[in-house]
């Protein structure tokens, strides 16, 4: 068991970072080096850089297209996405060393958990959504549920991320700071990061291409 904990906290992270970075890099390069396709934009679209940023922020923060066109999954999706944004914020605040980070982490994980559970429930209870859903859709949501649930259960947000990351960088992984419960969370986080670039969850960067390179015309 000790070996397993050491593996998860002391060895796997190197693999995770490598796979995550390479995976994301591969996707980005693959899309970025695509030949300039024939124009396929949809009108009207924001034309200036300022308008595009405004539109993008509106979509990212409010999931505006769902409010307008598909309300039945809007609130759930919004909770999930904000949960993930706030978890991102937790990383930053934790690294800076602010005490409030702990509570930010709790909020982020709670929103992610509630968002993924409620999305799972609409998906399975709404006939139309159920029809277009396959195993992968449920799998992704379950993954997010497990991740956020486990983080809350293990009280993961108390972790001093900075110390841990520095120990990894120094190739002297500090594995003693984790409880057995933490190890499960850490494992899930890493599996998630490995899975991310290979899955459709990579839409968080893919969206840049679909909007800027296709729907809004070639970025000048």
């Amino acid at each position, binding site marked *: 068991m000790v070996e397993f904990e050491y593996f998860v906290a002391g060895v796997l992270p190197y693999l995770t970072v490598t796979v995550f970075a390479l995976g994301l890099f591969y996707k980005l390069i693959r899309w970025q080096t695509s*030949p300039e*396709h024939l124009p396929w934009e949809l009108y009207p679209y924001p034309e200036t850089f300022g308008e595009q940023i405004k539109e993008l922020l509106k979509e990212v923060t409010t999931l505006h297209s*769902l409010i307008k066109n598909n309300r039945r*999954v809007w609130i759930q999706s919004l909770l999930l996405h904000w949960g993930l944004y706030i978890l991102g914020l937790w990383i930053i605040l934790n690294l800076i060393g602010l005490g409030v980070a702990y509570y930010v982490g709790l909020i982020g994980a709670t929103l992610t958990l509630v968002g993924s559970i409620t999305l799972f429930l609409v998906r399975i209870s709404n006939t139309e959504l159920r029809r*277009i859903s396959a195993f992968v859709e449920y799998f992704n949501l379950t993954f997010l549920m497990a991740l956020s649930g486990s983080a809350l259960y293990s009280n993961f947000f108390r972790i001093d991320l900075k110390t841990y990351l520095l120990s990894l960088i120094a190739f002297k992984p500090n594995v003693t700071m984790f409880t057995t419960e933490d190890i499960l969370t850490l494992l899930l986080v890493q599996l998630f990061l490995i899975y991310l670039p290979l899955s459709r969850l990579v839409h968080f960067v893919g969206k840049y291409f679909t*909007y800027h390179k296709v729907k809004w015309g070639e970025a000048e």
Partner: protein
Amino acid sequence: MMKVFDEYRALSDDTLKPDQPKAKRFIEAMRKFLDKKENWTFWLPYILTLELCVKCGTCGEACPVYTASGRKEIYHPVYRSEMLRRIWKRYFTLSGKIFRGLAGAKDVTEDDINALAEAVWRCTVCRRCAMVCPLAIDNGLITREIRKIFDAIGIAPDELKENGTRAQIQYGNATKTPTEAFKDTLEFIKEDIEDMKGVSVEIPVDKKGVDYLVINNAGDYIAFMETVMGIVEIMNYVNADWTLNTPDTGVNDVVNYGLFYSDAELVAVAKAQLETIRKLKPKVVVIGECGHAYDSFILYKKLYKEMYGEEMPFKLTHIVALIDRWIREGKLKVDKNKNPEPVTFHDSCKWGRCAGVYEEPRRVLKAVCKDFREMYPNREMNYCCGGGSGFAIMFKDEFLKFRMETYGRIKAEQIKATGASVVATMCANCKGQFREIIKYFNLPVRYAGVSELVANALVYK
């Protein structure tokens, strides 16, 4: 005909050959279109759509076929895209090869391929779904990509290929009208305008180096003559330096059905059209009332560079933009009282969502019609009429019924709600569909081209 997908058939048995195996050939052709270089024209939007869909279902809410069909599962945009995605996963992705069903992959059967070949003719590539998709991915594009694969293995509707792109390249127009017959039609148009309006008009043909080369949808000379007459009258009214062209010069038909189903055909037709234009050397090419043609010509800007290594030497515009300008400049004097009936406007997908032409027709119609009424929803959220991507000329079997019971039903309701007695539109395919909708639903309205209404409002003296 044999049932392969639903109760309709768009492809004849002769074309589809449902009994013959084709799955292997399909997969081989599919491989080609997954290649960046081979499919440079649409590779990025294609791949992004294959990879990113999160199945949120928003596209279904926007799709006229899905919603009007009573939300039948098989007509959901995602359902159709998944038919292809399962094959892509199974044969072209590592996760699909390893995890199979768990990764959404599936061994393909001959029945799957037959069903897919028909399924892509239940979507007009109207792209309303892409307009609303939170990820901005495009199930309409997937439809078109699948059609491309089928065309590569010899399966395309004869209306669009044998009697469409192929005929157009061979005869100069998809209606197979020879020069003599074309000139007779023009003579008839000239006489008709002179009889009806009491004004004499000239219809120049094949003139080189003019200001405006007007190219119409050749079908207009047969089915929507009033539109052509309107254009002729308008060009004469402003005393423009203009010309039409005959098949003697090459292609005199502005359509490009390749846009609907095949890049190879799109390019072949483009080449024939551009060669013709290069010979005639006009300053401006004016696209008549044909939505997909204008859309194709937008693509030609890039294709032209690929073909000839230089920028297009002529400007591109369309007839309604010219009319709009001439009305605002006072060159066209119009009296809106001459069109007293309530008129509404149908935004064609190709003019609107795909080309951004929203304001010109509205300004023009408001200037020439006494009672202009918007149809709702409109502009970028307008519903496709059901004539798009070639459907307007596809009638096999019960296919007309499909067009009417889905898109047609929605459009009929939209028209009724306006209370208008005229539906104006600037696209030949839409007019073809409106002709059928009006008959099928027994609507007390008529359809009209924008140019026709403008000509009717012209003030002489």
